[in-house]
């Protein structure tokens, strides 16, 4: 055995203690092929370890580089440490032009129950009904014993209600995270902002018209509306309705130079927070009637305020000049119609007087002189023969005769026969006074100084003449009660008889007034329409525009102008008088005609 083992190692000393082991030492490597193999192994090991060392060195260097050398750029290597952005509301807020909140989305959890987990349905029902008096105990009990695993008990709880439910401590009741649209101003902006359904889908107004945009954006949507002006307009319109027992009213305030709508009111209105609820003060007014936006969805034969278009058309196409005269001494009989004057002068009138005294006969004759073709083209150019384009989803197409006969030409000249929305009218009227540029009305705020591209519809000269004529109406014509000292108001009254059945009813009126101020440098347009006003004592038996909406316009302008920074001027100043002087009347008294 000893001969078979050439190397004995620690067994050499036979006297060693039994536990003694000599210290390890490198094995003696024999010469020959074994030695070669071991050398090769060592070389491989060396290579491998150098390779590993290199890789580790690279890793170490990279760590040093990231942490120490690349100042701050290490941040990009830690994406999951970023601060989470605040959760976006499911729907963007809506604010007015001053950033005032008009619509917002708030968390409002819904209460649901898992009836399988409810231990004592009778007790739970008793507690729930005591917390929510509006709940019916039979209904709740039926739900809780239905055996389903999910029943809604109440949608959209307020934070207080949620707290109360938690206080009840009923097992099996749970909250579902939901969001709800809240309109802090309630009825004030109801028709413009609109409202949403229970699942926050837009059902009316901007909410519906810009539903997609509201769903996809984070930052609030800014409207052109000014809440203060909106309040003034609504209050004054409500006053007109109350004073003259009117049925409804619509009002619109527009920046004539940009087309921004500062205020849009339609009465009666509704509360977008509870769109289906009946108004306790007026339970007789139907919900559909209150939701109806009279500014964009209602089409009306606006009556005499349409005469500004007749005059503008005649002046712009050159078929009349300011000195043209028309005989308004006799009524016009055409077919079954008789066209007469309300403020009849029974004499020959010139163009400024036709507008001042609102002569139907004069306007009809002016339109006849221009011809139906021109009239139709002109109205189409002003956008009065097509539906208005606006951000709210409600926009009604106008009504006008398919065949433009002679009688139509005459009646349309004084605003009967073509029904348009107040919004279309306001856009077109703004174009008449702002230098002749028609701009699309918008409910979205434009960046300051941004004037949208418009379309030149009448010449600047005609526009200037229109401003002068409209000033004349307020200064000495039918609209004297719309005057607001210092703000140089110009405008036109319109009292239309409403069509009932196939005839015009004399007692059912639609009184309207379009006012523009300051007319020497137009900034804002105020359009007010009141449906079926009735005369009262103060108005001496009149329910015409001059007595109903014209004074309201005066009050609106006097209240809104300081808020919008319109500086009042002395109307007697010679430069203003000169700017508004009607050349054809220069040096002559009007009554001298």
């Amino acid at each position, binding site marked *: 055995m000893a001969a078979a083992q050439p190397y004995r190692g620690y067994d050499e000393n036979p006297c060693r203690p039994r536990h003694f082991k000599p210290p390890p030492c490198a094995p003696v490597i024999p010469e020959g092929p074994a030695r070669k193999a071991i050398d090769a192994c060592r070389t491989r090991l060396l290579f491998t370890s150098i390779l590993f060392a290199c890789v580790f060195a690279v890793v170490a260097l990279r760590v040093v580089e990231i942490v120490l050398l690349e100042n701050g750029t290490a941040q990009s290597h830690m994406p999951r440490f970023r601060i989470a952005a605040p*959760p976006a509301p499911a729907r963007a807020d809506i604010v007015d032009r001053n950033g005032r909140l008009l619509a917002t*989305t*708030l968390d409002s959890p819904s209460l649901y129950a898992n009836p399988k987990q409810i231990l004592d349905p009778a007790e739970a029902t008793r507690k729930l009904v005591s917390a929510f008096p509006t709940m019916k105990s039979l209904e709740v009990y039926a739900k809780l014993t239905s055996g389903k695993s999910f029943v809604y008990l109440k949608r959209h709880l307020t934070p207080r209600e949620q707290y109360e439910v938690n206080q009840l401590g009923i097992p099996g009741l749970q909250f579902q995270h939901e969001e709800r649209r809240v309109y802090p*101003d309630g009825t004030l902006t109801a028709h413009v902002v609109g409202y949403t359904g229970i699942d926050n889908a837009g059902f009316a107004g901007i909410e519906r018209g810009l539903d997609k945009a509201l769903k996809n954006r984070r930052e609030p949507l800014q409207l052109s509306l000014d809440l203060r002006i909106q309040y003034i307009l609504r209050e004054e319109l409500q006053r007109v309705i109350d004073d003259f027992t009117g049925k409804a009213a619509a009002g619109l305030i527009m920046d004539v130079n940009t087309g921004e709508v500062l205020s849009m009111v339609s009465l009666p209105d509704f509360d977008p927070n509870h769109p289906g609820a009946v108004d306790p003060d007026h339970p007789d007014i139907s919900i559909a009637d209150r939701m109806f936006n009279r500014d964009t969805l209602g089409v009306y034969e606006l009556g005499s305020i349409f005469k500004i278009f007749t005059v503008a058309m005649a002046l712009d196409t050159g078929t009349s000049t300011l000195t043209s005269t028309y005989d308004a001494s006799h009524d016009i009989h055409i077919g079954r119609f008789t066209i007469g004057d309300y403020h009849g002068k029974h004499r020959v009138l010139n163009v400024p007087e036709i507008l001042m005294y609102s002569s139907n006969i004069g306007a009809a004759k002016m339109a006849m002189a221009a011809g139906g073709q021109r009239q139709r083209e002109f109205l189409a150019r002003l956008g009065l023969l097509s539906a208005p384009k606006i951000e709210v989803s409600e926009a009604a197409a106008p009504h006008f005769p398919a065949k433009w006969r002679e009688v139509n030409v005459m009646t349309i000249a004084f605003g009967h026969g073509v029904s348009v929305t107040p919004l279309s009218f306001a856009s077109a009227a703004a174009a008449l006074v702002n230098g002749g540029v028609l701009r699309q009305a918008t409910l979205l705020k434009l960046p300051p100084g941004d004037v949208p591209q418009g379309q030149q519809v009448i010449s600047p000269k005609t526009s200037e003449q229109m401003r002068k004529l409209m000033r004349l109406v307020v200064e000495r014509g039918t609209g004297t009660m719309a005057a607001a000292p210092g703000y140089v108001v110009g405008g036109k009254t319109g009292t239309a008889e409403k069509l009932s059945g196939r005839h015009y009813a004399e007692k059912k009126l639609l009184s309207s007034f379009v006012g523009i101020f300051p007319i020497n440098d137009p900034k804002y347009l105020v359009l007010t329409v009141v449906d079926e006003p009735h005369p009262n004592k103060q108005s001496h038996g009149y329910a015409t525009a001059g007595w109903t909406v014209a004074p309201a316009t005066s009050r609106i302008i*006097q209240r809104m102008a300081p808020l919008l920074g319109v*500086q*009042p001027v*002395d109307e007697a100043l010679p430069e203003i008088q000169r700017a508004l002087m009607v050349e054809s009347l220069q040096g002559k008294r009007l009554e001298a005609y």
Partner: protein
Amino acid sequence: MIRLGTLFWLVLVSATGFAMFGVKYQVQALEDELARTNRAAASEEHELRVLEAEWAYLTRPETLEAMNRRFLSLGPIATKQLHITATDIPLRPPPAPTALPVGPPAVVASAEPAPAGSAAASAPEGVPISQPAPPETAAEPPATQSALRAMPALLEKPPAAQLAKTVPVKAVAKPGAPRRAKSLDDLIAQIMTSR
């Protein structure tokens, strides 16, 4: 005997291990804190939204009008209140160092530094300013000092200086401004005539 090198590596490995776990727990703690903070921020955000909605609700024009009627009874601005703009009001004239300012400019000079001047400007039209208002008679150090500094000549004259000590503002106002504005209209009229 364990070799030094082995010991070194052993210590290094365990140190690294401990350090790594330390960092890991630290990171976890930080992550928890971050999540907590994010949750808190989200709930604050939500509360903010509620408060904003509440603020909008409480400052509805109709509420403000009702409160105005109860507490302030302010009316809409009348056109005649707007005939004068800020640019129409003249700037304070430069102080005359040698002589006592006599004549109309002194009206402006004396009316402006006194607190009553600003009170008069902000008071609603038609409300008379109580003749010598309490803050005027009570010696107001800063206003008085500036008024006196503006008019060193006043200090040189013994009787005037004496007056200034007892009733300072009145003394300043007396020689230059014989008439005190009774109302805002009055004040504006004075300013207009002084131009």
